[in-house]
């Protein structure tokens, strides 16, 4: 399946971004082939509602699960509506987080884990 990991610099082997709506990049990975690419987050400079817009972008890219540090309430609601599963991690590079996801050790969240940037 296709998953997305929030990233600051768009690299596979550097620390991920703990923030979702306004991270600089998403690392989009195919969990079967481990092929990955970095896509700039179109919601980074969004006027408002960055979380939901980021989700719309990822949904359009066929993403089925996301990994980040925390989700605001609006981002989470949108992920839920889109049928995308939301995971959180405290630290790690996208490569490490991919491994953690595949081994089933990542925590899936069932509600928002942080306040939303309401703009």
């Amino acid at each position, binding site marked *: 399946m296709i998953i997305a990991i929030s990233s600051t610099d768009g690299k596979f082997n550097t620390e991920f971004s703990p*923030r979702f709506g306004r991270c*600089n990049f998403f690392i989009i990975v195919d969990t079967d082939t481990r092929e990955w690419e970095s896509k700039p987050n179109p919601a980074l400079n969004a*006027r*408002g509602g960055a979380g939901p817009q980021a989700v719309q972008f990822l949904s359009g890219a066929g993403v089925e699960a996301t990994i980040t540090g925390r989700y605001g309430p609006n981002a989470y609601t949108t992920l839920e509506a889109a049928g995308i599963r939301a995971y959180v991690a405290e630290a790690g590079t996208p490569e490490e987080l991919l491994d953690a996801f595949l081994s089933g050790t990542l925590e899936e969240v069932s509600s928002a884990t*942080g*306040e939303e*940037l*309401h703009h």
Partner: protein
Amino acid sequence: MKQLVILSGKGGTGKTSVAAAFADLLSPENAPFKTVLADADVDASNLELVLKPSVVEREKFWGGSVAEIDSDNCSACGICAEVCRFDAVSVKDDVYTVDPIACDGCAACVYQCPNEAISMKEQLAGEWYRSESLYGPLFHAMLIPAQENSGKLVTLVKQQARLLALDEAYDLVLVDGPPGIGCPVISAVSGANLALIVAEPTASGVHDMHRVLETTRHFGVEALICINKADIYLDGTNKIEEYCRKENIRMVGKIPFDLMVTESMIHGKPVTSYQPNSPASLAIRDVWTGVMKALKDQEL
């Protein structure tokens, strides 16, 4: 990388003076956190007056848009005035115009106009700056007076500060917050690890301190309190201390009223740099020590 925001509720309690002093105390090489500064009070950005930065980069800020009616295509049907909920459309001699100050930018009129005679025009709402100062990099902004979307400009300033901090491995973004509790404050609080509330012991000050505390609580941000001008009304100071005890809120210090704070402002310096041994400077050092400890405690 952590984010500390300085708030007050009531205006004029001393946020910027404390923020400037913190910037000074965090500027030496051996300071506990390598710090980027952000002035989130975009309506009235005063931090630059005491940090005296040099602007390195400036960008325009396009806020929202306002509606504009093309009178050539307008059939004076009046539908725009009917749908506008912000009293922004007026008519004189069958000429319909939009008041750009009243216009909320919702574009309802644009979509309802049967002649497609209305379009949205982007508004230049301000500028933001990346500057260098003796105390580190400073991100600040100027909102064009009477413009909307100050909350968005705050978000932009903080975002830029955060991006620099991440790029160049800074440990802390210090945000000098605006007064109030509405959208600019909410934008300033967003993503903060810790809020320092600078309270004043006056009747108004205590009232507004409660409002801003409820706000930080609402957004799940840990808050510390310090009392500025603590000696002007001891009853008020006692009230605040008792409240903190009861609610288990950490009180990190009391700063006496000290004219040196104003004098240092006039000389364009943080009080701790201008007069390090003045009563306010000494008290602010204690507050700063308490805040640094709280930030470090969060890492555990």
